[in-house]
């Protein structure tokens, strides 16, 4: 079985305990306005262009089979209307300026890569984390990978938006030691607006995980004007506090790393100019969470 993976990051230290290797799945049903991995949305490989690496050798133009799909004059180089993301230009590019994001990998291939850092997991209590994109978009592959990880004796973490089929999540949860579960906006209408999908599915899934009994850490991206109201945080904390398998809420500070990626993909970034919240603001929200007798951390 194969899955579409867009990155495997070693020495991941913010996606679960210890030193970990994070496998990023490509494909996501959500469309969060602040997404810092927008290249992970589409469930197919995509050609990306890094202008600062281009040496102007013209190898890509020779390799491209579609007239007009590559435009040397354009800042983003790729005409996404014509490009089929076949990846021939990326193959021809010696400078890694054109890169094919997303690679079909077997479970064995991923495990082989993850195994390379086993000594580091053993010292630190780390292991493998599945993230994305949304791993549940490739549920079968995700479950197979988690199973393989568990049978190899790895500590496994699933980092999910919670948006997926309940039976998939239930099955995946059987093979993980910890779930990192995103809660972004509690208000249904607002959720639809800034995230693009129904919050109800996510909330039902979170409650289901409580029934299963797998440990969950709630993660909240703190995005000014989008998710950072006291009211929203209070609602999140209340929900978290009602679940026996949740002890901790991580507040993830907004950063602007996604901005350039949006441009590269030729998508307008609605959050242009938005500043990351300051320490004071983060601590205020942290206090709201702590008021519910939960452990709260600030990250980023």
């Amino acid at each position, binding site marked *: 079985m194969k899955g579409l993976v867009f990155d495997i*990051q*070693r*020495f991941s*230290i913010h996606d679960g305990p*210890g*030193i970990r290797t994070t496998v990023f799945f490509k494909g996501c049903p959500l469309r969060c306005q602040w997404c810092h991995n927008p290249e992970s949305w589409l469930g197919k490989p995509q050609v990306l262009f890094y202008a600062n690496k281009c*040496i102007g*050798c013209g*190898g890509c133009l020779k390799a491209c089979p579609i007239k007009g799909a590559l435009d040397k004059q354009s800042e983003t180089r790729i005409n996404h209307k014509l490009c089929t993301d076949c990846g021939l230009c990326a193959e021809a590019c*010696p*400078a*890694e300026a054109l890169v094919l994001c997303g690679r079909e990998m077997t479970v064995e291939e991923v495990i082989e890569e993850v195994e*390379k*850092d086993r*000594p*580091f997991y*053993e*010292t*630190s209590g*780390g292991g493998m984390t599945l993230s994305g994109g949304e791993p549940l978009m490739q549920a079968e592959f995700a479950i197979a990978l988690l199973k393989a990880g568990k049978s190899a004796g790895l500590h496994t973490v699933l980092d999910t938006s919670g948006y997926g089929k309940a039976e998939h999540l239930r099955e995946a949860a059987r093979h993980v030691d910890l779930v990192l579960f995103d809660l972004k906006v509690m208000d249904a209408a607002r959720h639809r607006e800034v995230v693009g999908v129904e919050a109800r599915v996510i909330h039902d899934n979170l409650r289901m995980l409580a029934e299963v009994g797998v440990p969950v850490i709630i993660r909240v991206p703190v995005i000014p004007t989008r998710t950072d109201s006291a009211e929203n945080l209070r609602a999140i904390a209340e929900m978290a506090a009602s679940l026996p398998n949740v002890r901790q809420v991580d507040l993830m500070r907004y950063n602007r790393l996604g901005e350039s990626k949006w441009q590269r993909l030729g998508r307008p970034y609605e959050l242009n100019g938005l500043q990351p919240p300051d320490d004071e603001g983060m601590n205020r929200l942290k206090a709201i969470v702590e008021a519910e007798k939960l452990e709260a951390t600030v990250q980023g």
Partner: protein
Amino acid sequence: MAGTTEKDTAVEALNEIGEYFAAGFFEDGVPESAQAMELPPLMRVAKGIRNHLARCPLPPYGGEWFYPFCGDVWSCGEAVWHHYVRFGHSAAAIDEKRKKASTDAQRAALDALGAFWSTFPPAGGYTHSIPHYDRVLAEGLDGFERRIRAGLQRARRLGEDEKVRLYESLLVVIEGVRILHGRFIGQVESAHLSDPEQETRRRRLLSALRRVPFEPATGFHDAMVAVHFIYVLDGNDNLGRFDQFMRPFFEADRKAGRLGRDEALDMIRATWTHMDRSTGWNAAIGGTAAGGEQGASELTILCIEAARGRRRPNLALRLREDTPQEIWDAALDCIATGAGLPALYGEQNYFRALREAHLGIREDDLPWFAFGGCTETMVHGRSNVGSLDAHFNIPVRFVDVLHRELASCGTFDEFLARFKTHLREEVRRFTDDISSWQANKARYFPQLIRTLLIDDCIDQGREYAAGGARYNWSVNNVEGIANIVDSLCALREVVFENREITAAELLAVLRDDFKGREALRKRLEKCPRYGNGDERADSLAREFSEFIFHEFMSRAPWRGGRFLPACLMFVTYADAGKPVGATPDGRRAGTPIADSAGAYQGRDRRGPTALLRSVTSLDLVHAPGTMVVNIRISKKLLSTPDERERLKDLIRTYFRMGGMQIQINVVDQAVLRDAFEHPERHEDLIIRVGGYSEYWSRLSRDLQLSILERTEHG
């Protein structure tokens, strides 16, 4: 030989123009040439040292803990100098002095000096070392003198003339040291200080100096004064296992309530400041105590605390599996200040490597391994390791073989075999040269200060350069392994496997330094690279390092022991790249080669775990001279306790995998970029390079650029 009157005139003239060492050297006459004097010139050197110590200018005392503070006694502009490196002359300095000379006698003396000193044969490079401080603290130099006198009597009785000559000259050296000691006391005595705190320090220093270092030390303060004296006498080189040999004094005084933590910290800070400003080198702290138990203590923590934000000493922290959390915390706090200190050492791997090297190290000496200079491995107080006798630049030899042999090789293996054959011959020639330099050192350049301070020179009656130290091995820099591995990977893939380009075409491109062939250069860079945990590159790294380390380890230097490979390149990796033509790893001609044992700058792209996996693929166990690894970690990776714990996990795992040494730079890329554009705004920025830390503003532009290109992890 010149007549008595002429000789006296020459000696007088030399003293007039500040050539104290030379004046003493010529006290018994001016020989025609180096070869015409009695060899080795033990008594001449002893008298040179005595005369120098009796006359060298001394700075005023300013109320510090120690004297002389931030200065030294060996460099006072002599054209013929004596230093721990050895002694020698500067023809340019002689010319300068000649221009300023005021009498004919002075000019004649300088002419004779130049003519005589140019007859010495070549004797090679550096010799960092560590005096046996603890023995001075226990016996006092008076005890040393008694051993010399006893040795002299025994040698006379047995008719061992060479030993007689050595002991007699050592007594002259001791006499010189006594004179210097008296002059130090005079300087401290005559200082008038209005600040009461300084005056208190002055009185304490004076009272300590009236006893140490000639009598044994009794408490922390006078032990520190004695150590300072010996450190200065040795030429401001290394402190060795400072926290181990000072610990009994520290703990006794602390327990008795005679020493406050802050006062101890203040004294250690003063020692570090002195080392920093006087271009001192290494202090090795932590690790196994003499009895085999964990030796890190409160004093170790003070040593680390005192090093925060500093460039030197080059603090080397030895770590064990059971090193307490407080030591780790202190170390990571210090590392977080960004100056790269302390460097971290996986002690168990040194024990293993030193045992496997069959250097004959006694089990009770093994815990006393420490470092000199950047990080050359030696045994505290008992070694003459000829640290960095020379540098073996592999890429420069590789390029040479490449252009001669590649086109006629049918397979990659054939090329690799020819390259190895060539290297084997080069290592033989290189090590033969070092041996001949060592022989010249013993014959022409005796080092009597070190003969005095390092075991077992006195006890064996053998001079230091002649092999009197208990351990004699030669640490040599083996440079540019990453470039070789990357280049071999590229050749294998592009020329031999895929046949994308012919050997002849590639050689032409390299000769043209990739001119007009940027796409090809980038293509070459895409090949497997050392530093990414990629088995295709790492297996070559393993094979090649086994080969080259074996070539060194299987040879014995003239003075004894073995040739120990190391890779600790300090700021030299930029210069080492200058003579190296373009290489198949995509490196342009004349640009820096890889820093020490790490990846080529910026080629490690898979994170620190992958980099360290590559490093541990090297045959580390056969390179106990120390393979230095610099890693740059982003500042944000050290901001929370959890993140620090992960960094600790990273290092501990690396040591469990066989890693020996790692130094961590915590400087953000934005800061570095700004420092590159505006060095004047970052005068205090300290960067870890090669084996130790240096001010950013002192680095060449090439080197700054190469540091900017290093991968930032985190």
